[in-house]
């Protein structure tokens, strides 16, 4: 089901943990599946120096958290804003269609942490919208129902 890269990031997640006195913290949950992701950013001179996460969620949620934090470290805020759920998924060699929504969590919690940073520092970040606490997956019903039905 998952690519090797996803499994690697799931088994050996990078950047798990918390950052004390982080520049920005964002927590986002998916109302539907109930998963929650929390991202901590350390930002200095407009550059993301460090990122950590805590995630309660599925394999894809853990792997995308791990990958998103990896991708964001060292980037400017502007560059960080360009990270989308699709680019995280691509960096993981793809996700199964039903699991694309999990990568949204990563994108949104990153944005939420940046929003928190902006608020704390009283700045506006161009192109950043106020995050919502709950992520909905709008195009979930566009693709066919996928295999898999939990308990058989």
């Amino acid at each position: 089901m998952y690519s090797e890269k996803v499994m690697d990031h799931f088994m050996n997640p990078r950047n798990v943990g918390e950052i004390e006195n982080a520049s920005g913290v964002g927590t986002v949950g998916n109302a539907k599946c109930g998963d929650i992701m929390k991202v901590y950013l350390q930002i200095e001179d407009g550059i993301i120096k460090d990122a950590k996460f805590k995630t309660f969620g599925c394999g894809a949620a853990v792997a995308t958290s791990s990958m998103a934090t990896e991708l964001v470290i060292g980037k400017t805020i502007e560059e960080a804003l360009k990270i989308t759920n699709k680019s995280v998924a691509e960096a993981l060699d793809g996700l199964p269609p039903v699991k694309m929504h999990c990568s949204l969590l990563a994108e949104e919690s990153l944005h939420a942490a940046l929003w928190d940073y902006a608020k704390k520092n009283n700045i506006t970040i161009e192109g950043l919208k106020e995050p919502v606490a709950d992520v909905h997956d709008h195009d979930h019903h566009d693709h066919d129902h996928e295999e898999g039905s939990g308990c058989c």
Partner: protein
Amino acid sequence: MNKIYLDNAATTPVRKEVVEAMLPYFTESFGNPSSVYQIAQMNKKALDESRETIAKYIGSQTNEIFFTSGGSEADNWAIKGIAEAHKNKGNHIITTKIEHHAVLHTCEYLEKHGYEVTYLDVDDNGLVSPEAVEAAIKDTTILISIMYANNEIGTIMPIKEIGAVAKAHKIPFHTDAVQAVGQVRIDVKDQNIDLLSLSGHKINGPKGMGVLFIKRGLKLENLIHGGGQERGRRAGTENVPGIVGLAKAMELTYTDFDAKIEKMTKLRDKLIKGLLESIPYCKLNGHPTKRLANNANIGVEYVEGESLLLLLDMNGIAASSGSACTSGSLDPSHVLLALGIPHEKAHGSIRFTLGVQNTEEEIDVVLEKMPAIVQRMRDMSPLWEE
């Protein structure tokens, strides 16, 4: 590393003896049982004998056994077949909230076609009471369909008593016994059952093979129309190897039955006790005693099911979960929700289901590994605080 397979409620390995019983019917004795000539007649005989074997183990007549392509087809057939054949008498069906999707989605389908369905609540342990069933009966009730045992939490329903209620009201009673067969002794007559579904792959038999028991004389519309197979009630060239395999699996399942169940119950209880003792914030889902001998369903708080499954898998243990994240639908198990377990806790349920092949050593390995795996996940969770 040897895999520890603890998902026998999902499916089971086919036993060697079953495969051996099936093999001749692929290449040698392959004829169409409906044909006149000798090589087909041997197949006809194998078919008749298989029917007899299955009838014997559920206490029915041979001519009350009808082969299907699995549990889902049997459930669909029973429910739609009764709904249609009895629609002149009424349009009301009684079932429970914790049925398998093969029953639930069939009922939902019928609701779109003018039928009315009562989905009974269950108690904290997943039980439905005969009184609740009786209270739900209306003049228009034409079918009661209640599963023998639940596939997720293993709770065993008071089938005989519910059957008695149905009988007293002269309402056909169907039970989805897909999980119960091979775990409990079934006697359709004694237990007042009119229709019963079972499936081969849950009892170390072949996938794609099931049975619908239909009490003699009960009117039922066909689901699959066509040729005259199964005495005109289920069309399609008979899957002879599958049928022979299913019969063999039934026979093996009910051989040394009591000893096997005793052993399995012991392993199950060891597993449950061990997990509850070594992992904090953890409870048993389902009924403490009225449960299948092979089922241990544990609710683990602050842990997400799919991740837990994946980590267990990496540790060589195969199990399953009622977590939303393992399903395409994003909703956590309707069964756990029906027990009143809140959304976020339903998330962290894990189901271990034993099979004949499991050993005590395997249970020891699970007991050894689980606490650390759970701890690792909790450490990563934003919800967990010591």
